[in-house]
């Protein structure tokens, strides 16, 4: 009964979103105020029914209702409750329902928190989101309903969730990522609304910016969590594989980063308007493309569960309609959009533009590397794969160039700066970063390494130029505390995010240069040395988990005779699927991780053991967190709140 209610609620939600897609839009174009005001209650209704549907699926999971096909395929009565619930998005159908839930959640949030928005603008924005919801919910109902039943005979127990997914990572990573993916639909809706209404001014940018920043922060956080999860869960210590699905999340993030910056310029100076619109369209289109790549199974990837051509086709059509429609609209309307101010060669506008171009180029190169195998296959030229070396070779140089431009961009002013002023500000950071870049590889490593020099100097350059600029703000200040309070939160957000980029870059440079790794055969009592640490294997014993049995090894780590930590990696066998799973054990710290994973059992109680020494690996994710935090800090800036309060006052 409950699953049928879920299905039924979803059907109602579809009808609501069709109405939401049509009525307020029509009202906005004819100036019918009453029809426009329907947008808000409709957004609420849509959210309400999708939530009901989602709760029904959650209930089916928690009650082990294996008559529901999706539950039977992705759950098992032995699973702990938190994994039963997160198994809702452990497969295709449920993750689409999560997608729909988040989309309707964003729609509802826009309807609630946009009091400053003129009615026609709000009606259009919500209508565009209604169109997207219509597409997605009908996709859910037509090709992949999570509520389908096995009747009359259903299995006594479920087939269990993939052991890799029975982890904390599944609870947090997909929702975060989807919040980001789907969040770009808000920026997209704002862009379409602006094109339709022909109003594309600083106020528009001010409305769209907080939403875009939040979505961007969530996406960044989702990617960071995914990287961290892969690192500890997959058992081979990698943190980025250039897997097509990772690329699918990286591309919208890169374009989203460009969008966040271009929106800042649009808000502050009224420039790059049509470019901003285009980025908003592309950020969301790339999110859709990501969904297509993951869900259609066209690419070989660890994330591609089951391939279904029908689903792939549906999303491809959705993508074609979204891109085709919005780009046509863009082509018709964008030429009317005019810049409001001019700027000279040496100005922050130009450097933001350069940064935008770099980011876009990076997204395009990733896109090319991801789609190239598909293209070659479609042309019948053979099966190929594009390896990580391609991405590294293209990505790293562009990233370096962009970081250099980043340092300059914070030091130059809007509109115009003199070369002398820039040199005055930046000579010291330049000297410091180059010097540190030279010294670091010599003292930390075993000799000079060009890549370490580049990575460290570029990261320090980004950090020190931000810092110098920050100090410069105090030159004429009365007291330090008053000036600290005066600076807008968005300025702090920018600083934190830029420092985050540098922290991540340091992490990437050092972990990819100085990591040490040994795969070896270890007998009880065997000892091995890696990076100055002694790892002694003391055998394994059997432990029993909720739904698995495991061999747990004891590995004692000592440094100079002093015991540091005892690591207990496991090799698990999950009862239901009889699936093997490696559970690594990690001794984390800010400057290095010790990582131990079990391979397979060999004869006479020996094991294949993999040991990693990973310096500065935490910095990767720390930087990711800082970037996301910076993005959120900007949203908290009072100018976004003040505005709304003021406008409300004039309305009243």
């Amino acid at each position, binding site marked *: 009964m409950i699953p049928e209610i879920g299905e039924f609620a979803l059907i109602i939600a579809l009808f609501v979103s069709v109405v939401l897609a049509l009525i307020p839009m029509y009202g906005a174009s004819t100036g019918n105020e009453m029809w426009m005001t329907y947008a808000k209650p409709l957004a609420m209704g849509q959210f309400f029914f999708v939530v009901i549907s989602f709760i029904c699926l959650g209930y089916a999971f928690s009650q082990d209702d294996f008559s529901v096909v999706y539950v039977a395929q992705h759950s098992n009565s032995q699973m702990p409750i938190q994994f039963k619930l997160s198994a809702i998005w452990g497969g295709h159908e449920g993750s689409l329902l999560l997608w729909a839930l988040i989309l309707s959640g964003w729609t509802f949030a826009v309807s609630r928190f946009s009091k400053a928005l003129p009615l026609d603008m709000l009606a259009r924005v919500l209508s565009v989101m209604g169109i997207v919801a219509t597409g997605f919910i009908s996709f859910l109902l037509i090709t992949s309903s999570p509520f389908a039943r096995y009747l009359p005979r259903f299995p006594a127990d479920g087939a269990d969730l*993939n052991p*890799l997914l029975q982890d904390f990572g599944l609870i947090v990573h997909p929702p975060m990522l989807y919040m980001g993916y789907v969040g770009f639909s808000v920026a997209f809706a704002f862009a379409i609304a602006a094109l339709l209404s022909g109003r594309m001014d600083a106020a528009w940018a001010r409305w769209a910016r907080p939403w875009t920043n939040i979505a961007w922060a969530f996406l960044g956080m989702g990617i960071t969590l995914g990287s961290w999860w892969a690192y500890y869960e997959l*058992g*081979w210590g990698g943190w980025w594989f250039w897997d097509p699905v990772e690329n699918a999340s990286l591309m919208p993030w890169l374009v989203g980063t460009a969008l966040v910056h271009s929106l800042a310029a649009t808000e502050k100076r009224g420039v790059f308007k049509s470019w901003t619109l285009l980025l908003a369209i592309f950020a969301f289109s790339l999110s859709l493309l990501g969904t297509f790549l993951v869900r259609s*199974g066209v690419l*070989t990837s*660890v994330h591609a*569960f089951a*391939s279904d051509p029908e689903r792939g086709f549906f999303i491809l059509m959705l993508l074609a309609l979204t891109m085709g429609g919005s780009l046509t609209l863009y082509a018709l309307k964008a030429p009317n959009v005019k810049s409001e101010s001019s700027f000279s*060669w040496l100005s922050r506008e130009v450097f933001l533009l350069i940064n935008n*171009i770099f980011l876009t*180029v990076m997204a395009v*190169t990733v896109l*090319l*590397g991801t789609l*190239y195998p598909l293209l070659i296959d479609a042309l019948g030229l*053979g*099966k*190929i*794969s*594009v*390896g990580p*070396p*391609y991405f590294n*070779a*293209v990505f790293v*140089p*562009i990233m370096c160039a962009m970081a250099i431009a980043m340092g300059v961009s914070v030091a130059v002013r809007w509109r115009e700066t003199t070369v002398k002023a820039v040199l005055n500000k930046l000579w010291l950071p330049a000297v410091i970063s180059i010097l540190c870049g030279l010294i670091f590889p010599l003292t930390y490593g075993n000799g000079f390494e060009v890549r370490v020099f580049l990575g460290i100097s570029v990261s320090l350059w980004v950090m020190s130029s931000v810092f110098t600029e920050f100090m410069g703000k105090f030159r004429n200040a009365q007291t330090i505390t008053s000036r600290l309070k005066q600076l807008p939160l968005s300025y702090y957000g920018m600083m934190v995010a830029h420092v985050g980029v540098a922290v991540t870059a340091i992490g990437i440079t050092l972990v990819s240069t100085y990591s040490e790794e040994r*795969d*070896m*055969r270890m007998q009880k009592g065997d000892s091995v040395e890696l990076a100055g640490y002694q790892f002694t294997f003391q055998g394994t014993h059997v432990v029993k988990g909720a739904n698995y049995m495991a061999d747990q090894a004891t590995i004692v780590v000592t440094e100079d005779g002093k015991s540091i930590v005892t690591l207990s990696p496991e090799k698990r066998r999950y009862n239901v*699927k009889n*699936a*093997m*799973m*490696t559970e690594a054990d990690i001794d984390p710290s800010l400057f290095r991780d010790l990582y131990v*994973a079990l*391979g*397979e059992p*060999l*004869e006479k109680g020996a094991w*294949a053991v*993999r040991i990693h020494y990973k310096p500065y690996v935490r910095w990767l994710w720390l930087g990711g967190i800082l970037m996301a935090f910076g993005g959120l800090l900007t949203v908290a800036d009072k100018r976004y709140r003040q505005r709304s309060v003021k406008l409300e006052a004039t309305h009243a």
Partner: protein
Amino acid sequence: MTPKRKKRLSIILGLVFGTALIVGLVMYSLSENINLFYSTSQIAEGEAPVGARIRAGGMVVDGSVKRATDSLKVQFAITDFEHQVVVEFTGILPDLFREGQGIIAQGKMDANGIFQADEVLAKHDENYMPPEIAESMKNKQEAVK
């Protein structure tokens, strides 16, 4: 030339130069880093180049897995049910590596016709067959008909 035109010219030159540089970089890295996929039949018939980095895929032959007793060296055969190829690998095999399971190996063919793998990939789904393998097997079946 007027200063305005000069400015425009330098923008255009900059764009052209930058685009050319990036396209060049991309094309070069693509040409260096593409791994072609070969089925075991293609390899057995000598179509795969010796010494070039390629991908090979097939099902692991039952009873073919042999381990060295003192190291992590392992040898096994993969097949597309027509021809077999022997693969050598040193290191830890993925969790889902099993006899009868479809895998993809990356590495090089050596002079003795043995595939020296530096990476072995097995998918985290027991019913999953890498699309490359599925297709090469389908082609085989059609050829038989």
